[in-house]
């Protein structure tokens, strides 16, 4: 709790105000949820108190997602941060019959084919968790700190394109936010405009 006070103090001193979105507000406790992963195991956000958690909304057929998976960049990020103890959850909110819908089998196939290094792929086929977080696009990224507070909501990086060549030129907001937060510093840009394909609810 002491740490949380410190973080909030830093945020207040840098004059970043809490930004309210439907359901999930920056600098407030992230809404809890429970979802089943592609192996049939249940995960609740609250299980991961004490760890940083990254939520990545995913639709593997979306060109903005392909931009990061084709050259292996998303897998690289997942490996880097899960090795540091970060929990990385991919959430699939594509409804049945919609683009990017993952059955448990398709999700596990994707893990094998693409070399996905996330902690788990969670299936949110009724879109309940997506709507709870107001997830708009794929990839839409969220970061929750060890105290369970939402510290980042937005785009994966600063160049709104489908071109993989832009990745190196862009600022990766998830990396910036995790780097700052893991060093006990405030996140400079806690909310950015997400870009990508709309979530296929």
């Amino acid at each position: 709790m002491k740490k949380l006070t410190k973080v909030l103090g830093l945020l207040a001193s840098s004059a970043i105000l809490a930004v309210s979105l439907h359901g999930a507000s920056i600098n407030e406790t992230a809404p809890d949820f429970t979802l089943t992963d592609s192996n049939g195991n249940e995960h609740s956000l609250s299980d991961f108190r004490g760890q940083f958690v990254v939520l990545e909304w995913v639709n593997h057929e979306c060109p903005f997602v392909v931009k990061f998976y084709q050259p292996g960049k998303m897998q690289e990020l997942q490996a880097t941060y899960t090795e540091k103890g970060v929990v990385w959850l991919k959430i699939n909110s594509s409804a049945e019959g919609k683009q990017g819908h993952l059955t448990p089998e398709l999700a596990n196939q994707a893990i094998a084919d693409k070399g996905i290094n996330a902690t788990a792929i969670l299936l949110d086929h009724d879109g309940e968790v997506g709507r709870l977080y107001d997830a708009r696009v794929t990839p839409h990224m969220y970061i929750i700190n060890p105290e369970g507070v939402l510290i980042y909501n937005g785009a994966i990086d600063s160049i709104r394109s489908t071109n993989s060549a832009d990745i190196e030129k862009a600022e990766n907001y998830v990396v910036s936010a995790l780097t700052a937060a893991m060093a006990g510093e405030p996140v400079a840009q806690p909310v950015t405009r997400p870009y990508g394909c709309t979530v296929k609810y």
Partner: protein
Amino acid sequence: MKHLSFSAWAFACLFAWTAHAQEYRGKTLVEAQLVTSDQTIVPGKPFLVGLHMAMAEGWHTYWTFSGEAGLPTNVEWDLPEGIQISPMLSPLPELKTEATGFRAYSYFGEVTHLFYLYPSPDLTPGQTITIGAKADWLVCEEPCIPGSAEFTLELTVGERGVSRSTEKDPRLAEALANLPRPAEAFLERVEIDWETKGDQIILHGRLTTPLPGKLVAFYPLPPADAFIEIPEQPVFQNSPDSLANDGGVVEFSVSTSVVSPGQGLSALSGVLVFENQETKQRFGFLL
């Protein structure tokens, strides 16, 4: 330069630059082409170039500010010395709700984005100018597919002082007619104040009639890194009767939520959209 004979002129009007078709699963989603009214540019005289895009039925591309979803069309130019180009000028889009429930500023059917090319007065008549362009866009129905195309324009530098007064290509003429115009220059009187209240940014406007129709919306053009919501419908402070009165004043406000950057935004540029209630024709005025 000799004056072109009528038949040569007619022939010049019929030329067409190469079109590019974006194919997806056996279907053409977008046919894109550069359009000009002429192949001859005049030193020192602006020359209009359009990027014409024809979308398959149900598919759409996006305005400069795409809204809750989407990505704007973008053109990168490869210009030789002596040629400059304006920013992209886009016709008024439509605000539509997509299949996924998100609202976006979109173009359905056809759209022509415009650019003014500025040839230097020092160009030599008879010289050939080669201009390259790379267009990128996102086209969506329910799925979204990125598209891109590269184009080349081969233009001849003509004699000084000879210039066209009207655009012969109907696509250019139509796009010009649908471009939002500077509000200050075209409306009788425009007074705009901005107010910030929490995460809201509120436009307070006073317009003097006659107006080209009823004010129906404000389409914002936020900075690229800002994250704002689509503005609410305009709220009128005075009686709707005054809308019809010549010389009357229409007072209204439009509010928008700014998600990010919290307090960094104190005003927005954008387009006031009017609609003629009978013809349904829409007019845009740039703020």
